[in-house]
């Protein structure tokens, strides 16, 4: 099993004729994702370089293809709008890859999506992958290991892209498969967060353990820790990036900032440990920590 996406998920790409959109559509198709079309306003009626139909609007794309998920590469200025358009067109899962979206745009978009019951992943994220079935995003597919009969499987939730690849790689190297890996993104205002995904992995029979990768900024990890204590019985292995980050500086991600003494790695690690969660001191020992818990 998996969460949120599987081999039946039908995906469109908003921004399919752009450089990044075209490249990653090709990569996803190669991985086996059912990408059924794309949207670029003004280019409706044409074919993409992959031979997929291009539509002017999401409404047309959904009507013609029956898509239920979207992967958005629209530039930052119009990306929040694109997410709302997808929701209005009946898409149920919006994966927003774009980096650099103004925060107040996301405040508005998130409310709009919530009101329509649409799930959002991102923005500023690598996307989501159910290994062997469906990849919606920019992560390198080959590092992932699909579950097989009798395999030990983890679900991964992460605020960081490359750090997720690191965790996936370390797990795959040790023979640990992944049910689904979700990059929730590095922005302060985003879609699905640790708590919602922890619940989904808790309910997924095939997921044996959950890896959560957090970083400095905000209090999502502290809230997740409290939630795990109450509601999650599967083992959780965590890592928090930014133990050496100085306060008041934005560490690459818009959301990765310690402000007013809040959002430190130390506070997050303490909250997680207090909830009985295994926290890896080093990013290099995540895989080992997971293997240790599942042995």
């Amino acid at each position, binding site marked *: 099993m998996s969460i949120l996406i599987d081999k039946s998920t039908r995906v469109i790409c908003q921004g399919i004729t752009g450089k990044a959109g075209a490249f990653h559509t090709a990569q996803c198709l190669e991985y086996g994702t059912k990408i059924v079309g794309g949207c670029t306003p003004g280019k409706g009626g044409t074919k993409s370089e992959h031979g997929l139909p291009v539509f002017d609007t999401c409404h047309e794309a959904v009507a013609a293809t029956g898509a239920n998920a979207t992967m958005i590469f629209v530039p930052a200025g119009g990306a929040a709008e694109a997410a709302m358009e997808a929701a209005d067109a009946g898409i149920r899962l919006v994966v927003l890859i774009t980096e650099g979206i103004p925060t107040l745009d996301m405040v508005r978009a998130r409310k709009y999506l919530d009101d329509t019951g649409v799930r959002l992943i991102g923005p500023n994220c690598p996307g989501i992958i159910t290994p062997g079935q469906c990849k919606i995003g920019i992560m390198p597919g080959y590092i992932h290991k699909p579950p097989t009969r009798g395999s030990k499987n983890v679900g991964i939730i992460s605020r960081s892209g490359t750090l997720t690849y690191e965790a996936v790689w370390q797990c795959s190297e040790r023979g640990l498969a992944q049910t689904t890996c979700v990059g929730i993104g590095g922005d302060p205002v985003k879609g699905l967060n640790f708590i919602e995904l922890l619940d989904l992995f808790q309910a997924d029979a095939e997921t044996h353990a959950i890896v959560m990768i957090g970083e400095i900024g905000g209090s999502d990890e502290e809230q997740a820790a409290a939630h795990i204590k109450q509601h999650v019985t599967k083992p959780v292995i965590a890592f928090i990036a930014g133990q050496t980050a100085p306060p008041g500086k934005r560490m690459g991600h*818009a959301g990765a900032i310690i402000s007013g003494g809040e959002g430190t790695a130390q506070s997050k690690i303490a909250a997680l440990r207090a909830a009985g969660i295994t926290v890896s001191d080093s990013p290099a020992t995540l895989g080992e920590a997971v293997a240790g818990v599942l042995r």
Partner: protein
Amino acid sequence: MKVHEYQARELLRSAGIPVPPSEVIDNPNQAPQAYLRLGSETVVVKAQVHAGGRGKAGYVQLVTSADEAKSHAARMFASPMVSKQTGPQGVQVHKILMAPAVDIAREFYVSVVVDRARRVPVLMASSEGGVEIEEVAARNPDAIKKAWFHPHLGLSTFQARALAAAIGLSRAKAKAAADIMYKLARLFQEKDCSLAEINPLVETAAGEILAIDAKFNFDDNALCRHPDIAALFDPSEENPAELQAKEHNLSYIALDGNIGCLVNGAGLAMSTMDIIKLHGGSPANFLDVGGSVTPEGAVEAFRIILADPKVKAVLVNIFGGIAKCDVIADALIKAAKEVGFNVPVVVRLEGTNVDVARKMLAEAKVPQLRSATDLTDAAKKVVAAL
């Protein structure tokens, strides 16, 4: 992006929020005239720098004559301000704000930020003005009253009125304060702020409600649609290496240690710093080259790292996903030729095109390069190389 206090005052004025008159000078000779124009006996002279701790450093000064204004202005322009927030080198003062001292009866605090947990902006107000909000939050959290915005409608006037009453303003004064709060909330949304703060908002002895000091931060991602705000940027407040990096789409932050870091991805870059520390070293910088890095961008990254005289060794940590290992290997070889490595460089590559990259590096035979097999090995090797 941060702006100076004098710029923040202008923003408040443009939004119709009452602010006392003020003068801005950029050399001490302008101080006496500015003092006279203000027409108040007691005037406050404030250095315009982004760093906090101005009062303690002696860069906020009350004066009572034109001569005194000039001598204090001269002193502030002459030597950099050193405070807890600036580091020992301090920051040079380029502008000074002068304003009449206000006879304050009560001080309040008002600000707007985005509440990340609720995913909406929040207006915060407190009867404890003039002190840092973090201090109030730690000592007396109940003193901070909050009103959350509707994501689409923004703050409503009734919310502002309720908040003004909640911080203990009399009916007559609450109306004026609520008007200021509402206007501040509008300004926050219209200009894509990440922080809009008035501290203190005062009730004067004469019964006026005035904004005395203000601080604004803006969402960097929204600056492109606010050219008026982007124009307020003061590059002299920024670290030159960080500015140079930004021009090349690199995310770089200078730190105090001696191990330079070149990494792809913000999370991996942060944890590379962490693992260096874990193995007894100290990172000289945060550097995320990003996913769409070009060989030119990566060479520039080496240039910036190696220009830091503190750097005694470099750790390159790449997990090739979208960024490809061979691009980084190519950049390493070019940087060795063009920039020259005067310190050991430990390289850990994994992911997309790693075999090609390893072969390229092996054939290039750059003497300072040392390869590492994994992240722990890399951290140990770079600390040992010091």
